[in-house]
């Protein structure tokens, strides 16, 4: 997030797009609701009638996979009325002419035709965004989990730069992270192309720094593989060994049949997890790991705040902390990691990631600190890019043209399936499915179908149905609900008994290689 979570409540307007915030990020949604109570206008853009819509002034119910067209249309209208922040555009951005040229291809009538959003509503949203600053934009996986995910993200950034909604309190681009420490994992180089603090592996100076810091030689100069390439590599032999840590990939990857085929093919699979799950049967070695309440360390949340985590209970049996497991693996491979505790790991990380350098263990004993905090005196950074200063100098407009999802409905598969998360369960259920309380609250996966579609199909609420795609089929009960618009069905991947990833499409954004979990074509068949 370029902003802090608490800053959301002081925004004059909030644009939430592709984020079921109350279910996936309930704490953050609290600040959105506070903003509304303080007079902010909340605009929720989501094909589904999600819970947050109850607090929204406007619900933009655009079609699945039309975000780029929607955002371009809004920018076109903003420019037509001169609502852009000319000073910001002039002094802090570049390639405005290119952006203008592209968004002009999206007049409101065409935007309406693509997105299904009435022209009148598009006009009203553009007016609000153009006249009520500061405005925060929040997005989640509804933006990124598309084959055009990168275009969706750059379009969000384009809109906010056009409006000068960056580099100030309560105005920014805020991706709400999907897990408690996904920000920290990325910050520490759990990506194939960067070291800590996003220092590129392709940069010889960065490689030299890390080789020195780690006491090793010959760090690779090319980026590694992302998940989809790792998996296809299992089939063609270019991925021979795979370590799978805290990620139940059989449940979480799109197209379960493909994932299983890959895992069966890989020569050597190591799984680190807290329980046996759907992936562990394919493992050659399983390392039982400590869970969050059994280990020391830090989590870095969505707002870049580094927080201390402390072991509250002793781990059961032979469970070990992940840093110990990796240290022992490295030692057997001939490298001494040299740390004896989570704190040792932390000290090494902050010595190599200067944005973290000022975040000492002692300083976060009480409250966390938001990076960048490059020195011990530095108080941390609540919002980034103050004064419109960006890493590359000026902010770069990266205009994008709309293109439909990889798979769209047809006669055989007439419905759009989009997927997400539920409030009561977490990810593949490795934790929450082992919790009787959550099972009591929500113990069975359902597919949400609109009353119109249910009526057309002759499906009643609670009936078993098959959700069928070109990749597979899954049986679950129908939940007939107005949350789904006509033509759209929705479900989750929390339940092994009814995992929607049996049918999702393993196609990916060409840049990020994120899968298109949010759009594929399906049909519903009676499931009795």
């Amino acid at each position, binding site marked *: 997030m370029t902003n802090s979570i608490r800053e959301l409540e002081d925004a004059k307007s909030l644009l939430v797009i592709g984020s079921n915030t109350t279910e996936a990020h309930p704490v953050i949604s609290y600040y959105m609701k506070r903003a509304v109570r303080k007079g902010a206008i909340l605009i929720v853009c989501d094909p589904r009638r999600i819970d947050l819509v109850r607090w929204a002034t406007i619900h933009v119910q655009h079609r699945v996979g039309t975000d780029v067209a929607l955002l371009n249309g809004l920018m076109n209208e903003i420019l037509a009325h001169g609502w852009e922040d000319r000073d910001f555009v002039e002094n802090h951005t570049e390639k405005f002419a290119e952006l203008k040229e592209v968004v002009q291809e999206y007049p409101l009538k065409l935007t309406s035709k693509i997105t299904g959003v009435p022209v009148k509503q598009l006009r009203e949203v553009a007016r609000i965004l153009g006249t009520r600053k500061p405005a925060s934009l929040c997005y989640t996986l509804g933006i990124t989990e598309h084959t055009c995910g990168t275009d969706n993200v750059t379009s969000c950034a384009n809109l906010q730069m056009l409006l000068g909604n960056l580099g100030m309190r309560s105005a920014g681009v805020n991706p709400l992270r999907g897990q408690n420490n996904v920000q920290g994992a990325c910050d520490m180089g759990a990506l194939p192309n960067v070291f800590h603090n996003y220092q590129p592996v392709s940069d010889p100076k960065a490689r030299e720094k890390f080789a020195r810091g780690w006491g090793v030689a010959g760090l690779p100069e090319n980026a590694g593989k992302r998940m989809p390439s790792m998996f296809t590599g299992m089939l063609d032999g270019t991925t021979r060994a795979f370590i799978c840590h805290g990620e139940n990939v059989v449940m979480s990857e799109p197209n379960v049949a493909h994932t299983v085929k890959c895992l069966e093919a890989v020569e050597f699979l190591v799984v680190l997890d807290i329980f046996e799950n759907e992936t562990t049967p394919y493992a050659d070695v399983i390392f039982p790991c400590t869970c969050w309440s059994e280990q020391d360390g830090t989590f870095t949340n969505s707002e870049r705040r580094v927080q201390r985590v402390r072991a509250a209970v002793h781990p059961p049996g032979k469970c070990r902390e992940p840093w110990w497991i990796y240290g022992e693996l490295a030692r057997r491979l001939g490298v001494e990691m040299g740390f004896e505790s989570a704190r040792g790991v932390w000290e090494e990380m902050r010595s190599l990631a200067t944005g973290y350098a000022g975040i000492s263990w002692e300083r976060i004993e009480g409250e966390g600190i938001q990076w960048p905090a490059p020195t011990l005196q530095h108080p941390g950074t609540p919002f980034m890019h103050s004064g419109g*200063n960006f890493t590359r100098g000026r902010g770069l407009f990266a205009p994008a043209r709309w293109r439909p999802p990889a798979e769209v409905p047809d006669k055989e598969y007439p419905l759009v399936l989009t997927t997400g998360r539920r409030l009561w369960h977490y990810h593949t259920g490795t934790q929450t499915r082992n919790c009787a309380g959550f099972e009591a609250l929500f113990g069975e996966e359902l597919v949400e179908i609109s009353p119109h579609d249910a009526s057309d199909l002759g499906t009643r609420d609670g009936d078993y149905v098959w959700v069928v795609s070109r990749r597979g089929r899954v049986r679950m009960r129908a939940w007939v609900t107005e949350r789904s618009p006509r033509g759209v069905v929705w479900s989750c991947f929390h339940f092994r008994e009814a995992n929607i990833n049996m049918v999702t499409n393993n196609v990916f954004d060409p840049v990020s290689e994120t899968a298109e979990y949010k759009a594929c074509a399906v049909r519903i068949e009676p499931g009795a």
Partner: protein
Amino acid sequence: MDPEFFDRMMLKAIGEEIAARDFYQQAARQMKDPGVAEIFEQLSREENEHRHLLETFRFNPLARVEFERFQDYGVAEQEDEPAFSFSMSPREALQIAMKKEQRAAETYRRFADACQDSEMRRIYSELAEMERGHKVRLEELFVNAAYPECW
């Protein structure tokens, strides 16, 4: 205070600002990255403003000039200084600039500490504060620009 010594001191300080202005101006012309060129152009303009400020001070030595005190987080002190090159990034450009200001502040501070004359010590201390203010401003720019967030 010896007026001749004061004048020599001020001329030296003004000379430093002119040299810095020229350095940034020349660097701006040679940079491959337009964003970096822009940073150097802005720094060049600022050094010119500092020069005018010192010239005013030189011709009015009795003025009690006091520069604003900023919270100094010591970012420049912690950063390495990259080698100057025409293909440097905005981050490296700011690193070079803030290290330059750090050195200037340290130089004036040393002069102040070495002075016997209390008025001269005060003036050198103020010049050190002026440079420290520039350093802090550049550090703010650096912190805001140097750490990318990956979405």
